[in-house]
C-alpha cells in the first residue's frame, strides 16, 4: 500500500512538473533568451560603467568632497567631470558668479545662503568649516578649468 502511495506521488510530481514545462515552457524559454541577449548584457555593463563614472578615479581628492557632501544629488560640476542631477545649476562657474548673482562670496553663501532652496539644504545639514573650505577650494579650481 505504501508502495502504491509512493508511486502515485512520484507519478503526480513527474506529471505536475512536466505539465509546468509544457504550459509555461515558451515563456520561460523567452526569459532565458532575454537574459542571454547580448544587447541587454551590454546595456547593463554600460549602466554599471556610468554608475562608476560618477566617482571616477581621476577625480582629485579635493573634488571628492563635492560628492561626499551630497552636492551631486542636485548639481553637476561638468568642468571637473562630475556628473550630477540637473535639479540645480551646474556649479562649474559657481565660484565666479556667486558674488554677482547672490551678493556674497561663495564661502559666505555656503554659511548663510540667500536662496530659499539652499537655505533649507544647509540649515538641515550645515557644512563643517573643514568641508566648506574644501568645497570652495574645489569649486575655485573648477572655475579655473
Amino acid at each position, binding site marked *: 500500500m505504501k508502495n502504491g502511495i509512493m508511486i502515485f506521488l512520484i507519478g503526480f510530481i513527474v506529471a505536475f512538473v512536466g505539465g509546468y514545462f509544457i*504550459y509555461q515552457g515558451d515563456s520561460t524559454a523567452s526569459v532565458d533568451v532575454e537574459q542571454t541577449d547580448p544587447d541587454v548584457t551590454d546595456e547593463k555593463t554600460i549602466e554599471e560603467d556610468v554608475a562608476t563614472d560618477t566617482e571616477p578615479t581621476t577625480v582629485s581628492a579635493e573634488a571628492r568632497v563635492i560628492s561626499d557632501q551630497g552636492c551631486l544629488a542636485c548639481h553637476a560640476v561638468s568642468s571637473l567631470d562630475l556628473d550630477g542631477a540637473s535639479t540645480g545649476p551646474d556649479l562649474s562657474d559657481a565660484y565666479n558668479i556667486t558674488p554677482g548673482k547672490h551678493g556674497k562670496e561663495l564661502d559666505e553663501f555656503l554659511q548663510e545662503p540667500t536662496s530659499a532652496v539652499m537655505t533649507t539644504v544647509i540649515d538641515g545639514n550645515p557644512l563643517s568649516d573643514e568641508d566648506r573650505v574644501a568645497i570652495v577650494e574645489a569649486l575655485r579650481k573648477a572655475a579655473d578649468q
Partner: protein
Amino acid sequence: MKKALSAVSGIAVGFLAATVFFAEFGGSATPTSTASSDERSKAEQVYVPFGEHDDYYLMNSGGHSGQLFVYGVPSMRHIRTVPVFTPDPATGYGYDAESKEMLGDYTWGDFHHPALSETDGDYDGNFLFATDVANNRVAAIDLEDFHTTDIMEVPNIGGPHCAAFVTENTEYLFLPTRFSLPFEDPHASLDDFSEEYRGVLSAMIFDQEQKTFDIGYQVALPPWSYDKARAGKGVSGEWAVITTYNTEEATTNLEINASQADRDFIVLFNWKGLEEMVANGEYEEFNGEKMVFPENIDEHIYLVPVAKSPHGVDVTPDGTRFIASGKLAPAMTVFSFESAFEAIENEDFSGERNGIPVLNYESVMEREVDPPGALGPLHTQFDDRGNAYTSMFISSEVVKWNVDSGEVLDRHDVYYSPGHLVAAHGDTVEPHGNYLVSLNKIAKNNFLSVGPSHPESMDLFDITGDEMVHLSTTPVNPEPHYGQMVHRDVLDPFHVYPQDESDPLAVYDQNDTRIERNGDHVEVFGITMRSKFIFDATAERPDVIEVNEGDTVTIHLTNTDFDQDITHGFGIMDYDLNFEQMPGQTKTLEFVADKSGVFPVYCTNFCSALHQEMTGYLIVNPKE
C-alpha cells in the same frame, strides 16, 4: 497491476493539476494579445523610450495659426510650437520690444511652406524660412535657438503661397504671387485685370551672418496665380520652376472660370541669368525694387504647358526632371530639364503668352503616369532608390511609382485627403528613404470627438520595403500645409545664452541692477533668477518698480540662471503684458504706464520650488 494503476492515476492527477495551475485559457488572455503581432511591431517602431530621442525633426507649417510646429519622428510627438507670424503669450513673442517691432501690429499670419536652408542641395541646419500668404511677409527662424530672427514685409507681391523653397546653396528664396494685384495704378479696376494687373515674383536674399533679409530682384509676371515652386538641383541648379493657374485671367468664380483651359503653365526661369542681368543694370526701378519685365527680355524665362490647374511641382533628387500634375487631371507628368534646355536652344516653341515663349509640350514632357482610379495628384516626395511618392487629394491615397520607368509600385490609403507629403530629406539631393508622412486635411472620425471642428492629421509610413507600411495616425494642429523632415544630427541647438559683457542692456551682477529716470522715461536694468526679481538691489524693496502715471517704462531683464531649461517669465497684472527670458538671455519690455495703481508682477514660466514666491510690484503713482 496496482503499481501500474497508482503510477497512471498519479500521472493523470498530476497533469490535471498542472493544467489547472499553469495552462492559459482563452478567457484569461491579456489585452495585448488581442493585437496582432503585426500591430505590436508597428507600435515598437514608433515607440521612443525615455532617455532616447526621435531620429528626425518634422518642421510643420502651422497655416493660419501663423506658427511653426515641431514634431519628432517616428514618435510623432509634438515637441514645440515656435511662434513666427502671430503673437504668442506662452513665450511673450510679440510682447517684448524686439519681437513686437518684428511682428508689427499683425495679430495673425498664414504660415505656408517651411523651407530649411541648404548647402549643396541638402539641409544644413542653419535656418528655416517661412512665408505668410496673408500679409506678404517672409520670416527666418534661427535653428540655434529655434526663435524667429527676422521678418520682412515684401512689397509688390500678393500672397507668397508657394513658399520659400531655396536654391541649392540658399542663394535665393522665391516668393511668387498667389493673387495678382494692380501694378501701376493701385486702384485699377478688375475690368482691366489683363492689362493693369501683375503677379510679381520676388527673389529674396538672406544674409546668414547679419540674419537679415533683402530683395535681390523682382519679376513682373503676367496676371495669373502662382502656386508651388522648386529650385533645380545639380544640372538644373541655376533654374527654378513655378506652377501657375488661372491663366484664363478670371476675376470671379475662379472654381469654374479658372478651370476652363485644358492647359496651364509651369514658369521655368534661370535665376542665375536674371541675377546677372540685374547686376548689369538691365532692370527698371519699380516702387523701390529692381523689376524685370519678361516681355522685354528674350531669355531666362519660359513657359511649359501642363495639365490644367496644377498645384505641386517637384524636382527629382538628381535634378534631371521636374514632376507636376493638374489638380483635376488623373496623371503625374514627368518633364525633362535637359529636353527643356534643348528646346530653348533650338527655339522649339509652340507659341508665346504675354510675351513669354511657350516650350513645345511634346518636346519637354517625358512621361505621363496615370494610375487607374487615382485622382487629384498634388505633391511628390522621393526616396533614395529612384522612387517617387505622390499624394492624391481626391482619392485619399499615396501612390509609389518609379521615376525612370513610370511603373506604379504600390498604393496605400491615407485618412483622409492628403495635401503635402514629407519624406526624410525627401526634397533634397539625398533622400533618406525611410519615413514618409502624409499631411492630411481631414480627420473625420479618427479621434475622440471634440465637437464639430476636427483636428487635421498625419499618417506615418515606413517606406524601406517594397510596400509602404502604415505605422501610425496622429491628430495635429491646423494646418499642415507642408513640412520638412531633417535628421537630428544636422541640428545642434544651444541651451544657455552665453554671457555678453558687450551688451549694455545686460546685467549679470546684482550690484549693477538699477532704475534710472530721465524726464518721464524710466529705465529698469534688472535680473531674474530663481526665485526673485531684482530691479534695484540697493532699494528697500528690490523687487518693486515705482513710476508716475504717463511715464514711458523700459524694463531690461537678464535671466542670470545660466542653467538648462530654467526660463523665467515676467507678467504685469492688468497691463496685458508678459514676456520670457531664456537662460542667460537679456530682453526688453516697453510700455506707457497709462493707468495708476498697484500692479503685481510675477514669474509666469514655472522656474523653481519657490516660483510662486517670485513676485514684485509695479507701482504707478497717479498724476497730481
